[in-house]
């Protein structure tokens, strides 16, 4: 795909929520202390928030959505579309967006559907919802993005368990003829489907006697087939290959230079990957590249809005800014966006008990 644009849509506000429960990777007893320390130093992930049994992905998105609507003064009847981006939906069926349409009290004529994407999902969600609004036939939309990734990671799998944190978010978009262009550049490579994969439970493999059987893959890595599997080397090579060229192409098409960007908000994969991308793009102003992963881990689809809220809320709400967003991961799927924001509403991070 080449670079595409959206006109007449402005980003009005963002809110995000995490569970209160905090896990420290320094206390991850499945591996020895030196390995824990090396893990924290290399990935940058010190702590993560973990949802309890009582908290679903839609719970993590509900509160930010409600508070954001209240803060913006958006009447429930005024919302024309709600999109949920997640890979840990409340149920196989129905999708989580219709559940939230009802729970938020949105009108029945509201469009509500899910998008099944992970780490790249926020950018895709902005693009899809932006397109729904840009003609002006629909005026207001909510993009609800989040994952309870910890529901599918095995404690006995050191390659996945200490990476992920749970989070939900809400982003408000509105039709606005005076808004500037947003630029997008997206890509897909399904040949990477095995690199990040939950093998069992879907229509390919279903559930059988091996689904819940713990199997040791290599020392330190044991999981069941219902668990998330990560191939760290394949993922790292994918990110090195695709992300920087994708962002360069975005800037070229937009006629912009990375130097004029105020913040780069990348999916919070891990510090080693993100720093490699930063160096490839020759971004030397390190403070422009935001990180929330030390405190919240890899929060999958929610990582971009969560990082905006926790690391840049004050400037986002007071200044006009040029932002470069980039999500990349499961699929493989990736996408970047370049947009201007002006005094957007940023609610303080919500912690859910």
């Amino acid at each position, binding site marked *: 795909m080449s670079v595409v644009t959206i006109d007449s849509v402005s980003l009005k506000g963002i809110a995000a929520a995490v569970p209160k429960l905090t896990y420290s990777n320094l206390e991850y007893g499945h591996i020895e202390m*030196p390995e824990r320390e*090396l893990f924290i130093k*290399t990935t940058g992930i010190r702590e993560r928030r973990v949802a309890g049994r009582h908290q679903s992905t839609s719970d993590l998105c509900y509160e930010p959505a409600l508070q954001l609507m209240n803060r913006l003064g958006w009447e429930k009847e005024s919302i024309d579309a709600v999109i949920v981006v997640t890979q840990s939906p409340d149920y196989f069926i129905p999708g989580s967006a219709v559940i939230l349409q009802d729970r938020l009290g949105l009108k029945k004529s509201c469009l509500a559907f899910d998008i099944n994407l992970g780490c790249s999902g926020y950018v895709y969600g902005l693009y899809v919802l932006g397109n729904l609004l840009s003609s002006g036939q629909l005026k207001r939309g909510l993009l609800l993005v989040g994952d309870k990734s910890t529901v599918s990671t095995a404690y006995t799998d050191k390659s996945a368990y200490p990476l992920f944190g749970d989070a939900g978010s809400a982003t408000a978009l509105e039709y606005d003829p005076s808004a500037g262009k947003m630029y997008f550049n997206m890509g897909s490579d399904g040949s990477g489907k095995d690199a990040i994969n939950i093998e069992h439970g879907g229509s390919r493999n279903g559930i059988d006697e091996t689904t819940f059987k713990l199997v040791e893959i290599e020392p*330190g890595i044991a999981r069941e087939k219902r668990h998330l599997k990560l191939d760290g*080397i394949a993922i790292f*090579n994918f990110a*090195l290959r695709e992300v920087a060229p994708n962002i360069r192409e975005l800037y070229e098409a937009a006629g912009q230079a990375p130097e004029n960007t105020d913040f780069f908000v990348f999916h919070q994969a891990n510090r*080693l990957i993100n720093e*490699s991308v930063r*160096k490839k793009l020759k971004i030397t102003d390190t403070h422009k590249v935001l990180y929330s992963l030390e405190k919240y881990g890899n929060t999958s689809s929610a990582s971009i809005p969560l990082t905006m809220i926790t690391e840049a809320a004050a400037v986002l709400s007071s200044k006009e800014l040029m932002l470069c967003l980039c999500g990349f991961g499961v699929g493989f799927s990736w996408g970047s966006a370049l947009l201007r924001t002006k005094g957007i509403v940023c609610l303080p991070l919500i912690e859910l008990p």
Partner: protein
Amino acid sequence: MISAEEFTSQLVAEFEEVEPGTVFPDTNYREIKNWSSMYALIIIAFVDANFDVQLNADDLKNTQTVRDLYNIVVEKAKA
């Protein structure tokens, strides 16, 4: 291209926990003290950043020593 010795010392500098002077080109890198899979990612990042070469899982599987890695990097850098 730098020498295998220089490659080794630069790579070891990336492994902050490893004492300099304990790893040589013919050291089996998986036998480095406290070796973990995290080191594989550090190797990939180091080679990508410094030589613009990507090492894949097979490259790592098919190598034992730091010199083996060096030879692959030399070969791929030529291509």
